[in-house]
């Protein structure tokens, strides 16, 4: 039961069936079942995982032999948490769409994307990685542009071209590395054992870095992000923020650091500065937003800025922190966007001016939202705490000044998150929130699951940390190679 290829294939096959389902009720049930099957198929991988730092469950097939491409997949301690995250979040995202009227094609696109994401997180062959990288992009473009609102066409075109351009830069780097490999393949192992000279490492660093930085997004490559998040449908935003941006951070850890360590040593400092600027800049903008979704969008830039800073600090603490924080951010951000979606559905507005006093009308929502907000701020005993703690510690080890500015994220994060909570939940009710009904049924259970995960991971972070610790140590050995 631990066939990785089958796991990647399952959503794909499901997607093809779902394409032809036009009824919402059938589609959503089928989707939920399929996503749970995929989640179920993931469990053996977790149970039998050997956290020794090596790759598990490796599978390799000849693919395009003329080009030296193998379909080589495997999982190590960096892949597994993200793979699990993908498969855990999918059913949750599906649950959040239960009250909408999406047809099968919407869910089909979601599953296409899930396959692509799993391919990205398990590829040990650069060509396969690139294919997964692009395959994940196309469906989300359609999801956001078809079911989004407002100026969605222009915004998504920008998003698509931005990321596509980044991918092509990465393709050049991959092709170059492929030329250098004596055996002319695209294997990860071959790439990392290459002995590249300094000048090569420099430009390869940039080619990879820009591709990943656009996706994450790191300042100043973030300009597509707030608009895309705002105009996408809720489920699309969750896919983007919850899972997709982790592709970029994963890329940094899997392909950038080990392949061009000297390039990172040289320019990592600069990247670090960009990350820290992003943290402060996005936080300050988040504080001033009126649109609730934009607050979370900008907060997301700040959070991933901190995660990337942890990666570029390049120590075991930082990368371990990045791993756990990727998971935490995924869970929290989905909770946040879901709550905002519920609010928008009932009041027809995301403008903070129109909202307020929801807590008196919907106490259950208010309590669960509070837990999620606390998780996003990083309060102790919630999932965000341990991640931010590790990340800030690693940045501190890297440089005190960096830590000082990156640490602002704690304070500023509390400011914008509490402001968001206050303006929506507390105070007096407005015209729009007067008839707010509390959450029931599926909405309630979904948020309970999310809050439960937040608290569980806050109390037992080790359940995640030990999976990745060995692989992260292996990654650290590439330092100064």
């Amino acid at each position, binding site marked *: 039961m631990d066939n990785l290829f089958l796991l990647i294939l399952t959503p794909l096959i499901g997607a093809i069936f779902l394409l032809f389902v036009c009824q919402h009720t059938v589609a959503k049930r089928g989707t939920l079942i399929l996503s749970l099957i995929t989640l179920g198929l993931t469990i053996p991988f977790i149970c039998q995982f050997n956290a020794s730092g090596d790759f598990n469950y490796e599978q390799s097939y000849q*693919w*395009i*032999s*003329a*080009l030296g491409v193998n379909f080589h997949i495997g999982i190590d301690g960096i892949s597994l948490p993200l793979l699990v995250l993908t498969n855990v979040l999918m059913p949750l995202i599906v649950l959040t769409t239960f009250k909408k009227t999406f047809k099968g094609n919407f869910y089909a696109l979601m599953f296409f994307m899930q396959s692509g994401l799993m391919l990205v997180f398990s590829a040990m062959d650069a060509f396969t990685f*690139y*294919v997964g990288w*692009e*395959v994940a992009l*196309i469906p989300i473009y*359609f999801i956001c*542009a*078809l079911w989004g609102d407002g100026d*969605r*066409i222009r915004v998504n*075109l920008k998003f*698509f*071209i931005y990321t*596509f*351009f980044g991918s*092509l*830069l990465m*393709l*050049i780097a991959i*092709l*170059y590395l*492929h*030329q250098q490999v004596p055996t002319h393949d695209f294997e990860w192992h071959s790439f990392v054992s290459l002995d590249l000279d300094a000048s090569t490492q420099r430009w390869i660093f940039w080619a990879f870095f820009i591709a990943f930085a656009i996706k994450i997004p790191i300042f100043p490559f973030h300009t597509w992000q707030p608009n895309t998040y705002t105009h996408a449908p809720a489920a699309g935003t969750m896919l983007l923020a919850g899972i997709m941006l982790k592709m970029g951070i994963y890329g940094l850890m899997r392909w950038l650091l080990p392949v061009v360590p000297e390039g990172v040593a040289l320019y990592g400092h600069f990247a670090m500065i960009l990350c820290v600027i992003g943290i402060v800049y996005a936080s300050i903008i988040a504080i001033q937003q009126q649109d609730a979704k934009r607050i979370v969008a900008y907060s997301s830039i700040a959070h991933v800025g901190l995660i990337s800073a942890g990666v570029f600090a390049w120590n075991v603490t930082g990368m371990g922190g990045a791993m756990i924080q990727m998971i935490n951010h995924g869970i929290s951000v989905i909770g946040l966007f879901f709550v905002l979606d519920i609010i928008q559905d009932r009041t027809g507005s995301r403008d903070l001016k129109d909202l307020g006093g929801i807590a008196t009308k919907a106490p259950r929502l208010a309590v669960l939202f509070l837990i999620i907000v606390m998780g996003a701020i990083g309060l102790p005993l919630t999932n965000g705490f341990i991640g931010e703690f590790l990340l800030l510690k690693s940045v501190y080890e890297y440089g005190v000044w960096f830590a000082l500015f990156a640490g602002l994220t704690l304070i500023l994060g509390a400011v914008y998150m509490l402001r968001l909570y206050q303006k929506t939940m507390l105070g007096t009710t407005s015209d729009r929130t007067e008839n707010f009904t509390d959450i029931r049924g599926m909405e309630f259970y979904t948020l309970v699951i999310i809050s439960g995960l937040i608290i569980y991971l806050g109390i037992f972070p080790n359940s995640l940390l030990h999976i990745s610790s060995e692989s992260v140590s292996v990654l650290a050995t590439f330092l100064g190679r």
Partner: protein
Amino acid sequence: MGAIITLSILALLVLYLGLFKANKSLLPVSLIGLLVVIGFLISNWTSESVPLYNGMILFDHYAIAFSVLCVFVTVLVFALSKSYFTSSSDHISEYYTLLLFSLVGAILVNSYHNLALLFLGIEIMSVALYILVGIRKNDPSSNEASIKYFIMGAFSTGFLLFGITLLYGASGTFDLQGIKDYVVNNPNQISPLFYGGILLMIIGLTFKVGAAPFHFWTPDVYDGAPILITSFMSTVVKVASFAGLLRLFTFSLLPLQDFWTPIFLGIAVITLFIGNLSALMQSSFKRMLAYSSISHAGYMLFAIIAVGANSANAIFLYGCAYSLATLTAFAGLILVKRAVGSDHFESFNGLAQKNPYLAAVITIAMLSLAGIPLTAGFIGKFMMFSSVMDHYHIVLLIIAVLNAAVAVYYYLKVVVAMYFRTGEGKLVSINLNYALLFIVTTVLTILIGIYPNCLMELI
């Protein structure tokens, strides 16, 4: 050889069938004939390839592969022609005949081993097209396109002929092997005439493939010609011309690579920019495809710039991918134009609601043209990029990447129109022939995209 003879007889036969008003039998006879031609070509595959008829023609794997591709694409074009020609003219047998003759020319260009035959092939291919482009007698734009194509084509023929003459003057032979021997045996005393000849040949041949700066005819001619003829020109003619160009430069003139590589490098760069930037500005889907076909010529030139063991395969794969996607796009355009009456992007508005299957196949074609993974176009582009990378023209690659990002924008314009905009409620229907074509091209596009192995080491 059987292939060329069969094809020529077939063309005459079809002409006579038209004379006796057997219009219903035109399509089946042509299709059967073409399948026989494919059979003849494939049966030559294993045989030892030596130049035939005093070294005039050579059916090696290279020629056969490209010829089969050309014939196969023609079969697909014919599949679309069933109701197309009858609606625009009474004399439909001429269409078939001329297309078949043009195909004969294309096969000669694929398989020439003597410059005289290259010239003949190009002329046979082009003259038939001059007529076909202007076949809608009462349409001024069709007439204009025909005249333009004819005059420009005559010019380029002049250049080509002059080039061939100079090569002959210097080397004393028309034979590809002879020219190669001349270049190899006289490394230091190659006549300046010879270099002049190469330059003129480059002009003549880049005109045929529609590369800048000799591309000026392309948009107007593509736009003015009937869509079906345009789809033939932009696939069969282009692929054949590239095959001819590649054969000359990789076989005979390879030792003088240092001389002509920079020229092609320059041509490729201008071609990419002119093609893509002009395509960006278009409001007509047909013109956009015309300009994008210029830009694809730019990508295909990469294989000549970075000439190596894989060049032929790279061009072949790219040609397959490009032909399949272009055919789908043009076939989609025919259907949409028939229903809405215009070939502007707006006429695609809301197609996804009206006909989701058509929208889906056009989307896949666009993704293939843009070079998105899991489509044939990606593998084509990937091979082109990697062949350039072999020679470390990294700047060229970065230019190519910039262009690819621009191209995505205009290819997505169609997708945006189909899926994200709402249009009038006119129904766009697909008849059986078109449905078959779409199934063939789309399945092949995805199949080659996922598993290109079958085509990769063919040549």
